[in-house]
């Protein structure tokens, strides 16, 4: 059975069979919850405890895979609880990360073609486009205003997963300004590679072609998962995004999209990116002002 709620700390500890510990930091999504998850995950990973197999931070929870033959479950739980307790008592909530500019062709023909194949029975408004629907449910004037809201403020990679290298994105704005769009009524069996999608309060970029239920707004111009590791940004690892990365979408035209495709073919494409220190308290106190500062860091690149 699930562990009972701890008296003082917020997180809920429960087991996924004999190889997984699940730590639910909060039921609701928030920047603060995601930050706590990332902090716990970073500290646990840094300990390099024998028997830890995978440390997987998610939006508001943490999944740890372990080998119970090496690391007894009770020892692992005690360790994570200690980390959680230590973090509750100190207030240096900063994260060394990077801000990355991601070029997006909004309202592109690739997602439009797939969307047309999944209307009746799949979509809330089979007669319209995903982006028109998204604008409507967010009480925005039109698709253009939705696109503006989508790219003018940056997003935090709150989790990487589902499939290889897919980032979940949480926009760095007040809750009342979060874009929320229901997922498709029934998941599609097809989604173009690099689709920029949205479901609930989360954005995402589909790293590979496949099934998906998020609304589709456009395509990212450059790869985010490169098993062949042919581009320079993938020299160290085939997956581009890490939890904690900050993403600034940049709208591009068809011509700009095509130029980027040529750079990718030539092997010369690089993401514009720069290291930044992300400060949670400043982000929460004045999101728009702090985001401006973060985005200005990209100007020098």
């Amino acid at each position: 059975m699930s562990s009972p709620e701890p008296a003082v700390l917020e997180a809920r500890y429960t087991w996924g069979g004999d190889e997984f510990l699940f730590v639910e930091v909060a039921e609701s999504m928030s920047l603060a919850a995601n930050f706590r998850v990332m902090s716990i995950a970073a500290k646990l990973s840094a300990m390099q405890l024998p028997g830890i197999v995978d440390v997987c931070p998610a939006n508001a929870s943490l999944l740890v895979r372990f080998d119970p033959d090496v690391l007894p479950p009770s020892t692992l739980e005690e360790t994570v609880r200690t980390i959680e307790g230590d973090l509750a008592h100190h207030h240096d909530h900063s994260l060394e990360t990077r801000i990355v500019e991601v070029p997006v062709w909004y309202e592109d023909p690739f997602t439009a073609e797939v969307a047309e194949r999944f209307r009746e029975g799949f979509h809330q408004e089979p007669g319209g486009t995903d982006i028109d629907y998204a604008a409507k449910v967010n009480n925005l004037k039109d698709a253009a205003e939705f696109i503006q809201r989508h790219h003018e403020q940056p997003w935090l990679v709150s989790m990487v997963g589902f499939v290889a290298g897919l980032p979940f994105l949480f926009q760095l704005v007040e809750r009342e300004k979060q874009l929320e769009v229901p997922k498709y009524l029934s998941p599609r069996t097809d989604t173009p590679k690099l689709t920029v999608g949205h479901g609930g309060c989360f954005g995402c970029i589909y790293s590979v072609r496949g099934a998906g239920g998020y609304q589709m707004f456009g395509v990212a111009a450059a790869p985010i998962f490169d098993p062949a590791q042919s581009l320079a940004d993938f020299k160290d690892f085939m997956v581009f995004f890490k939890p904690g990365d900050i993403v600034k979408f940049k709208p591009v035209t068809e011509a700009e999209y095509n130029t980027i495709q040529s750079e990718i073919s030539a092997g010369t494409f690089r993401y514009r990116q720069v290291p930044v220190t992300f400060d949670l308290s400043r982000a929460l106190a004045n999101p728009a002002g702090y985001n401006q500062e973060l985005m200005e860091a990209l100007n020098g690149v």
Partner: protein
Amino acid sequence: MAFDIRNPGLATTVQDQGRTGHYNVGIPQSGSLDQYSAELGNALVGNTANEAVLECTYLGPVLSTDQDALIAVTGAPVEVKVNGEARPQWTRLQLKAGDELSFGVIQGGTRYYIAVRGGIDVPSVLGSRSTYSLGAIGGFHGRKLEAGDQVPVGSPLDGGAVPDADTVPEEFRPAFSKEQTVRIVLGLYDHRLTDEGLDNLLNGEWKVTPVADRMGLRYSGPGVQWKEREQPFGAGSDPSNIVDAGYAVGSIQIPGGTQPIILHRDAVSGGGYAMVGTVISADMDLVARAAPGTSTRFVAISLDEALVARKELAELKRNARAAIGAGG
């Protein structure tokens, strides 16, 4: 040395013990779904447990070997044929250069394994030779086999002797039954089920549907009920929705409360459906053997009992290896 794939079969892939350490970026563990059968196949031909094998799904391949090869076919019951003549399963077979290996109709279960001395010698990607089809990594060019593929076979490692016995005794061959009892540890989001929902999960009869593959198995049955609540921010509108979280391998999710899905080794690493429990590690091979229509009961056990079962499975493997005279 190589296998020449004349007919690939339905879904034949290269698999080993899997790829851990990258689940945090969505790369699943992959590996042979029925690890026990794959390991004993390797043992019969004198390989280490982690050599890559071919996993065959329902319809096996037709292949020939360009050199003499020592092989063993383990896993789900199927007629094994060499140049059209029936040969025993769970038994080491000597193939001569040019021999053709093919299969009859599967008699139960879902997957069988071709182990070859020296192992399938594809490049290791992130520490494993297993195929992850969705990400197109590992295995043979990141995909299932196709006709005309030349699948490389490795040279036997030094010191890996072929065991004395050439067959796995009957008592160490798993059952491929149409009825299963699967042990689970309740947890994760089981508190979100109503009492009736939990009762249905544990006392209902569930049948494996045809929607079952390396990612997961979907079951039909009485359905379950979720407690009503005001959904947390970001969780989605259905009571079976949660804020997207990591999925334990073996965890059971019940989207909409209708059909439970057990996630297996190629499953997505996370998502927004509440999980109510997790199949214990010792029963993951059992689930892998479940063909559509298999009648299934879920039995809840404690974490401590799951750890005992884990030790029992390790001991069973040791005894099986000892019975054929394999090391380790």
